[in-house]
């Protein structure tokens, strides 16, 4: 609202005045070593160059100095408060001794990764924040979950739908590009992927009136910003099945299909893989699509990076009526079995927590595995056809159903990690249900918002633990539960797997935990200042391995905190990162 907007404007104008209209840089990192395409394809073990560490989105680091034997000796090396209050979704990157942090309101900070000293800070200045951009203001309070590094640049996507390219050495703006019209409602909520000389990005805001008919994955030239291609996730004239799936609804009356988790990339086939979100409006009763499957919502898309053409798609949840989004991390896994190399895409793509394995060259369905309690998907055929409980589809406005998982997961943006050491996929989950009913509950009279009513998140019957860390044993033919760790508080952070045989993750009770990948035994845990958030990561400098743990305000914690009332949440956000390392002797 106005005060919130005004605050943003004041921050922006203060920065402008204080820094005299030049770049918002306080220092310079001399002799910064460029991030080469070769490094992106094969990241050095001691660095963390992109969203999930590598193109495969595995969230795995081969570093092994911190391991089952040494983790107990971890000591705080330094900590850093984030620049602004907001939901904590940061994904820190490290290259050449510099940590790059993005915080909400598109602030980027460069820190000395060894000492925690600030090198520079960039504050994105919105030229003006009209009152009609409230959704963008709302989204700006999320810590956008990733930025990208390429050569001597830092590349970020912003709430006002821009790509902004900064000099990594000093934080000055090298160039920026207005990708789409943010006045229509478009807004970036996830960061880009740099592949094949292109910035691959995906836009959000696709449920706003003005963005009807278009939700896009883009490719821009990484040097010039020229748009090379765009793929519309809710309108594909090249695929009659996609057009038919909307039940005759014209393109200009379609919404949704937001790809709101950064995709993965297979350099060998020059293919990028993205997950797509729910359709809009949520209820088919209101969107008018009948029993259509509404492609490509809740699907995995494999796109040719050179051309932007669709190679294949697979729909994880057809005919979504419950906002059970399926945009989450797509992980690329190679496994050699009996002398044959299998190239898989594995994911828990949607809020309903079902794990899928696909052949990533063809999109062929390999297997699926349920994790948390869910009641929408009734079965999946051997050919991958997903069946849903049509009894949970409301046939009248106001008809209410109890749906598991809930609109906030189940699974949410918190990414799982895959360890090639143990062939295991570690997934942070929350057991939750809510009621869903289509409704026309206008907020302001005559206005078009509010087409589905969700009840509060509650635990499924018979379950007392909200949190579940699920380890899945993955192979080309199936996924089986390797171990489970259940906890009263919900899981609130993404997961990091390491070559030290550990997996790190955190919860609403402010506990960062290390589990033994093989057994699920807790081998280390510390309680910090706020719910654990964002994307824990690790790096090494001068032969010492560091562990980074983001903490702070968590919607994933607050939205189900009534399920564990004995664990009060802090009243402050406390958005921070905590950086641990081993004492010298342990290294």
């Amino acid at each position, binding site marked *: 609202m106005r005060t919130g907007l005004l605050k943003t404007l004041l921050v922006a104008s203060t920065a402008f005045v204080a820094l005299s209209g030049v770049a918002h840089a306080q220092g310079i990192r001399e002799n910064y070593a460029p991030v080469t395409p070769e490094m992106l394809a094969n990241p050095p073990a001691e660095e963390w160059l992109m969203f999930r560490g590598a193109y495969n989105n595995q969230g795995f680091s081969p570093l092994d100095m911190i391991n089952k034997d040494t983790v107990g000796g971890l000591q705080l090396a330094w900590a850093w408060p984030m620049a602004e209050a*907001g*939901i904590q979704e940061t994904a820190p990157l490290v290259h050449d001794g510099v940590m790059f942090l993005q915080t909400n309101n598109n602030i980027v900070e460069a820190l000395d990764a060894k000492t925690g000293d600030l090198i520079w800070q960039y504050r994105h200045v919105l030229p003006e924040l009209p009152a009609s951009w409230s959704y963008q203001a709302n989204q700006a309070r999320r810590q956008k979950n990733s930025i990208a590094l390429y050569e001597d640049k830092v590349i970020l996507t912003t709430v006002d739908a821009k790509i902004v390219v900064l000099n990594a050495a000093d934080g000055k703006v090298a160039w920026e590009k207005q990708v789409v019209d943010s006045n229509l409602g478009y807004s970036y909520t996830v960061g880009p992927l740099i592949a094949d000389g292109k910035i691959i990005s995906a836009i959000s805001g696709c449920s706003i009136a003005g963005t009807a008919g278009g939700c896009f994955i883009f490719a821009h030239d990484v040097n010039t910003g020229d748009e090379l291609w765009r793929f519309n996730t809710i309108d594909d004239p090249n695929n009659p099945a996609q057009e038919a799936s909307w039940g005759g609804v014209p393109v200009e009356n379609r919404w949704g299909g937001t790809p709101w988790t950064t995709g993965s990339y297979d350099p060998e086939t020059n293919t990028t893989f993205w997950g797509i979100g729910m359709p809009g409006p949520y209820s088919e009763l209101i969107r008018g699509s009948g029993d259509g499957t509404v492609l490509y919502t809740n699907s995995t898309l494999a796109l040719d990076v050179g051309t932007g053409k669709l190679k294949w798609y697979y729909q994880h949840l057809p005919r979504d009526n419950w906002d059970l989004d399926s945009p989450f991390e797509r992980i690329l896994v190679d496994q050699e079995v009996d002398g044959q190399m299998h190239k898989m895409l594995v994911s828990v793509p949607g809020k309903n927590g079902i794990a899928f394995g696909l052949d990533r060259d063809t999109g062929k369905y390999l297997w699926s595995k349920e994790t948390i309690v869910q009641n929408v998907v009734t079965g999946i055929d051997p050919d991958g056809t997903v069946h849903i409980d049509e009894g949970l589809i409301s046939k009248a406005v106001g008809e209410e159903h109890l749906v598991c998982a809930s609109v906030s997961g189940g699974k949410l943006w918190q990414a799982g990690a895959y360890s090639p050491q143990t062939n295991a996929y570690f997934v942070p989950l929350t057991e939750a249900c*809510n009621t869903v009913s289509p409704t026309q509950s206008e907020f302001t009279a005559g206005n078009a918002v509010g087409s589905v009513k969700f009840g509060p998140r509650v635990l499924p019957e018979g379950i007392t633990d909200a949190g579940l860390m699920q380890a899945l044993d993955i192979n080309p033919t199936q996924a089986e539960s390797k171990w489970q760790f259940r906890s009263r508080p919900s899981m609130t952070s993404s997961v990091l797997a390491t070559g030290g045989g550990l997996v790190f993750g955190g919860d609403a009770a402010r506990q960062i935990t290390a589990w033994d990948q093989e057994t699920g035994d807790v081998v280390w845990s510390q309680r910090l200042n706020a719910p654990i958030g964002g994307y824990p990561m690790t790096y090494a400098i001068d032969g010492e391995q560091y562990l980074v743990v983001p903490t702070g305000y968590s919607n994933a914690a607050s939205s189900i905190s009534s399920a564990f009332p004995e664990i009060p949440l802090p009243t402050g956000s406390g958005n921070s990162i905590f950086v641990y390392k081993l004492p010298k002797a342990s290294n």
Partner: protein
Amino acid sequence: MFRSSLVGLALLFSSAVSAQTSGIPPEELNNTRRLAGDTINVCFDRTSLGRPFDEDVARAVADALFLQINVVEGFGGFPLNGDGFLDELNLAMTNTCDMFMGVAVSSNSPFSDAFALTRPYATIPFVIAVADPTWQRLGDIPKDRRLGTAMASLGELSFITWSQQQPEAERWVRYPYADYNKMATRVLDNTIAAMVLWQPVLARLKAERPDAAALRVISNDPVPAASVSVGALVSSRNAFLRSQVDQAIDALAADGTIDTLLEKHGYQGAAGE
């Protein structure tokens, strides 16, 4: 204590929102009491379709209470699912607004108990508009023609509810529209036969677009009529203000002031409920 209740409020709101919503970090919520003398902050949804009428009513209410008003241009531009709306409303009502005008007053109200609705100051209907001069009622339109409805509106609710009660062959196919200008264009270019929209929107279209002169209202028959009662939101903590505003609305409805304002803006409907 006050801080705790604010946090509680934030939790309450965040319990029923969808995934990309931020929630409100406690630092964003002011822990202060406004000292405004005889001035009240009156906020509006910038995208509200009855925005000019609502401001006139707010000024009339303030005059009746011997108050000054500070008009606050509010928020707007939310997704169709309302994602983020209640977050921003919570922030606005905590930090800025004494009164938030133009909200729908209904038994289906999505607002938290932290806010109280005033009594409605006007009740305004949804209408069916066509360009074809031969149709006098909705029932005259062939069933193979497509219709448009204002998405997520109470008019659409009434239409869908009626439609679900009919055999499939007796239903019109309808498409949801979030942009009333686009919906009007599709009626005028004959892509759709008719549109269901709030009457103030039709009044605005006629004021803004010369080609909208070709649009005219026909009878709803056989679909039941729908209307929205419009009121304001105040903090539940401010029962005194709500009581005063309710009394002012009663007086303005009784003395014809609100009817005059409806007429000024070309709105159909009636003062009060």
